């Protein structure tokens, strides 16, 4: 395999992705645009804790740590999944360029993954900034910061792998529908938010929802992210890590197989260049 060529391709797609994301305005406005949504998202959810603390007079730093870390790290996954799932919809329905990109890059699945890299990098930066501001906002002290940096970075990489392949699977459905592709991707992002240990532990969910939460890697990943940020946070490290690795492998396999089938079917039916004019 010619690695140089492969990296050049990835770089070219990342550059294209960056241009598509940002060339509608000046770089400093784009930086503001990227930060406004997550910061207001942080305020929106952090005030849940603040509203509770004000009305009840109770302060619960553990709950605040849980909430802020959940919101911060969700940005990484949410931004990345959006980066994969919107490509097909946007390129086919908005700009009508999917067919050109399809023939200019050897593999549509890898093209989607390469397109999302910029979003994951943005998500990574945003998650760190939101974390710092969130800690300050709810008055969490440095005692809640006792990170294991190598583990934290490893968890970011694992998060990228499972979430991007989950998004690839969802993108497979986008090939056939202008309406349901984006809806399914929004539903997945919403389900990860609800069932992923983001704002509250999944243990308080109704029993019938627990199997679904267990199928998704988000809840394990989020707990491990919290642990890697504060090694005093109580988790069963080896159990969770092995569970997450197994789920990640399964999601990668499903992503590859499902997308390959969807891609083949889409070519057979000739829908790659068919705009649905939703």
């Amino acid at each position: 395999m010619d690695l140089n060529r492969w990296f050049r391709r990835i770089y070219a797609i990342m550059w294209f992705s960056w241009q598509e994301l940002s060339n509608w305005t000046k770089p400093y406005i784009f930086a503001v645009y990227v930060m406004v949504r997550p910061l207001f998202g942080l305020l929106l959810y952090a005030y849940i804790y603040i509203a509770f603390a004000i009305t009840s007079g109770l302060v619960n730093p553990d709950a605040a740590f849980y909430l802020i870390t959940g919101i911060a790290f969700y940005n990484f996954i949410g931004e990345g999944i959006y980066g994969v799932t919107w490509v097909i919809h946007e390129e086919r329905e908005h700009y009508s360029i999917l067919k050109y990109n399809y023939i200019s890059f050897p593999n549509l699945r890898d093209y989607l993954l390469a397109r999302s890299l910029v979003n994951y990098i943005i998500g990574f930066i945003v998650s760190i900034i939101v974390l710092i501001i969130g800690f300050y906002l709810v008055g969490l002290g440095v005692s809640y910061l006792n990170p294991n940096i190598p583990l934290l970075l490893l968890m970011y990489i694992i998060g990228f792998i499972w979430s991007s392949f989950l998004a690839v699977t969802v993108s497979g459905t986008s090939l056939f529908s202008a309406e349901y592709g984006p809806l399914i991707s929004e539903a997945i992002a919403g389900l990860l938010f609800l069932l992923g240990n983001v704002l509250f532990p999944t243990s308080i969910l109704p029993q019938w929802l627990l199997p679904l939460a267990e199928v998704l890697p988000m809840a394990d990943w989020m707990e491990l992210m919290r642990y890697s940020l504060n090694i005093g946070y109580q988790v069963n490290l080896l159990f969770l890590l092995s569970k997450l690795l197994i789920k990640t492998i399964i999601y990668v396999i499903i992503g590859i197989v499902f997308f390959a089938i969807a891609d083949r079917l889409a070519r057979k039916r000739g829908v790659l260049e068919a705009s649905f004019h939703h």
Partner: protein
Amino acid sequence: MSGLKSNVIRGFKAAIARSYVRVKGGNREPSWLVWEVFLPLLMISSVVYTYQNLNAPREFVGFVILGGAMMSFWFNVLWGMGSVMYWERERGNLEIFIVTGAPLYGLLLGMALGGMLNTTIRALAIILIGVFVFNAYFNPVGIPGAILIFILTLAALYSLGLSLASIYLMYARSGWRASELLSEPMMFISGMYYPITVFPFLLQLIASLFPLAIGIDGIRRCLVLGSSINSLIWHITMLVIMTVVLLWIGLKILRYMEMRARREGRLILRWI
């Protein structure tokens, strides 16, 4: 027939025609209704469970359900009305509409009426699910007051949508991004998940400039806290003033932006 009268009649005819398409198109596929109720419910449920996890007072569930239902109207203003010029232009419909001679405000009024009806159905579904699944309790005595504030809120909100749509007539892709930018800040400043009284004074002052914040607060006071309509005179007055002011500003901006877009040839420009 005077020019103004015939313009208004054409405007209303265009509004009825556009709202018909909006209502028919928005409900022709029943599964869309399910999705549009299901997706906001995912976020709303997350917040309800968070409050339950914190052992927050029960009225917070009602706050969240009402906030979530009302927020659907803001999303409809942003994506269904504000960015309509963007979509109509991208699909090539805007130039066809312009050559018919019907005023643009007719198109937007139609989008607003159709959008209100569609979103009301979805918001009601969210409230019903909130009542039956999360045991949210609403005071039936407060319903007339809540309906009055609801109608005034929609009038002010969709008048604001008029200004937004005119801006998108000029700035296409940037307008699209602006819509994205206006989601979370509005959710926060309107107190979607909590009463705005938890904000510091300055933030409460800023929030009171937005019709949605006043509307959500008024409806919550009626349906959750059991306030009488007499105690909500301030809310009603503010919403009436906002409607008049925002409508006047919206029509002015629309006329100006339409002139500019015609002069600069932006009515048929795509992908900008």
